């Protein structure tokens, strides 16, 4: 019988195999995992260079770089999984500067015993999300930790991008008189995660809003280059993100509860669980702060994009030495919308 000269004579068992310590050892098993799983699905020329780094030409201009660790539980949830989330999260963080995201890197920490079929599902989902966003994963790293020292899989992604000339978006640029917009309904991601938690399963049709927002941002920046602030209200939700911006810009904010879009199923779930949708995480929404005279134009641009169809003006930036974010309630009173205290929902992204 002729000797099998293939590099990996026995294929990786992607049906019922599991991750073991050799997959992170740097040896043959790791090479096979990379070849038969990561290269296969995340395939692109830069990754295929198979170096410890990806080398590429950069366009002239200002570059941005961002990194994000993903530890979400459960790994698969309505509307996404840790793979797609790890692409969207970093693409969005890069894009919130107004930049066009170019490339991603991915670091995987796998727990011994993690199923290879689930890993493949996650990598396929990453590859689809990266392909759809047009932002390839060009380099990566894999480590394996002993059983009990991790929780299945953690993924850290880093992204780079280039900011167009004349765009200067930053959290410290909100000015009194500016208008605050959001790109859609608040709290969908957090409630979708809650609904699939082991000890809290409840039936809902809510899907996570996890999505890459860079094409929406590109449309917005093209129409109004002088956007002051952009940020995605992830952990801590709208409330916490606005407090961050208020502090960075040394201003106050005034919100109008009736104008904040919240899906009725999300508000119902929040009622039941004692949560406030303003504090619940989003993964496919952005907050935009711009000059008041630009707001209507931006709103129309956002609403014309599929990821911004429910966009709304929700408030304004005001002068306030204390940096309070206040809200006029739908009931007719007013209150502070404070920073999130403690942990409302652990491991949400």
């Amino acid at each position: 019988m002729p000797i099998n000269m293939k590099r990996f004579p026995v294929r990786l068992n992607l049906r019922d195999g599991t991750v073991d310590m050799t997959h992170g050892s740097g040896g043959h098993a790791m090479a096979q995992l990379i070849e038969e799983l990561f290269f296969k699905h995340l395939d692109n020329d830069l990754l295929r260079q198979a170096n410890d780094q990806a080398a590429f030409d950069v366009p002239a201009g200002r570059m941005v770089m961002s990194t994000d660790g993903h530890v979400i539980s459960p790994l698969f949830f309505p509307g996404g999984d840790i793979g797609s989330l790890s692409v969207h999260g970093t693409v969005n963080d890069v894009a919130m500067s107004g930049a066009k995201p170019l490339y991603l890197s991915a670091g995987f920490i796998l727990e011994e015993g993690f199923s290879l079929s689930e890993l493949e599902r996650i990598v396929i989902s990453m590859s689809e999300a990266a392909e759809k966003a047009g932002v390839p994963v060009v380099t990566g790293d894999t480590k394996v930790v002993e059983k009990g020292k991790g929780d299945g899989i953690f993924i850290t992604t880093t992204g780079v991008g280039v900011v167009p000339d004349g765009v200067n978006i930053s959290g410290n640029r909100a000015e009194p008189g500016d208008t605050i917009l959001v790109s859609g309904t608040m709290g969908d991601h957090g409630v979708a995660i809650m609904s699939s938690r082991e000890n809290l399963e409840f039936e809902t049709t809510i899907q996570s809003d996890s999505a890459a927002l860079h094409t929406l941002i590109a449309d917005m920046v093209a129409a109004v280059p002088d956007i002051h602030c952009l940020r995605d209200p992830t952990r801590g939700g709208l409330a916490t993100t606005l407090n961050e911006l208020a502090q960075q810009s040394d201003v106050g904010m005034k919100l109008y509860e009736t104008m904040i879009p919240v899906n009725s199923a999300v508000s119902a779930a929040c009622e039941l669980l004692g949560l406030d949708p303003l504090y619940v995480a989003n993964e496919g929404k952005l907050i935009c702060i711009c000059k008041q005279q630009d707001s209507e134009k931006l709103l129309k641009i956002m609403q014309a994009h599929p990821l911004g169809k429910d966009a709304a003006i929700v408030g304004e930036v005001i002068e306030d030495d204390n940096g309070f974010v206040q809200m006029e309630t739908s009931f007719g009173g007013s209150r502070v919308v404070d920073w999130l205290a403690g942990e409302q929902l652990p491991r949400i992204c």
Partner: protein
Amino acid sequence: MIKYVDEFRRHDLAQKLSAAIKKESDPQRQYNLMEFCGGHTHAIFRYGVQDLMPENVKFVHGPGCPVCVLPIGRIDNAIQLTQQHDVILCTYGDLMRVPASGRKSLLKVKAEGSDVRMVYSTQDALKIARENPAKEVVFFAIGFETTTPPTAVAIKQAQKEGLKNFSVFCNHVLTPAAIQNILESPEVREMSSVVIDGFFGPSHVSSIIGSQPYEFFAEEFQKPVVIAGFEPLDVMQSALMLIRQINNGQHEVENEYTRVVSREGNQKAQALVAEVMELRRNFEWRGLGMVPYSALQIKQSYADFDAEKRFDVPQIHASDIKGCECPRILRGVKKPTDCKLFGTVCTPENPMGSCMVSSEGACAAYWSYGRFRQTNNSSVEAKPVKSEPVKSDPEEMTSAELTHDELKGTTSCQ
């Protein structure tokens, strides 16, 4: 799916009620209305109800937050259970951050390796017990009459299933005893340093115990009580009802929350609790001290499921943190802003006192929702959005308050 919630938060109806309260309240006098329940405190702050009240109608926040009234010693006991008896301790989430002695909390001991699990119901705790037959599982039961029946159900269920590793650390307390204690306290009765003109009666608690138990002290202490729902319109409607009683010199128990509460309450739930639990001779309340017959304990016939009998649970009298005004705030004697620790070393991130921990605690509500009122930044005026102007026609105003029928027939879904 929840319906009929927004109906109780309607801006237009709030404006009508606001106008009616303004019209009927006597500008020459002060109305101090104590809401017993943390649920009311939360609603008042979250929806900004105080903004819709005239200057002379004030809410006094009472001790009705179960987390806030739990004495430190009981948290110390729970921590000891996890550390000395190696139990899995199941608890509701808001107890996790309550400060215990020695700067500890359940959250901190969890980080140090104690097995503390956050649960959403007693059923979760039973499930954990079934899944861990080799470990002792203790459910840290707290709460007023509303949360007592589920604890009783869990004990009965554990007995039926023959669950040998499940027990309950019972801290259930009783509302009427606490209200009576406040009314009998020297500050209220003799010194009159706190004037309470009327009470908002608890809503969920009353769905279990009914409105009858309040009749005694409405009569005895000559204070009106209106059982109020937890939605902001419920609070406003009940305030109007209290103001009318006060103006007329009445002191009756009225029920605004007729869509849920009856005079007799839920007798099935009462019977269930009576089967499993009995009155404790004495129980310590944070802020109120020892209050006789104010709490429940597990009956001897269910002793197998009583963590206090199963383990060594000593009585610990831990003192509050120096300077913490929680005890007085819980009785309505002081406001959160009267406390030196408030907002300086005590914040929701780093609570020193229990009133800062739970979102139903007066300090947390003041801090998280209302602290802009304490600043001089009054330039920020509320701008009405999408609202109808308040009707100035007196004809309209007299019919402004919501009738019971308007609020009835809908379901409370909290």
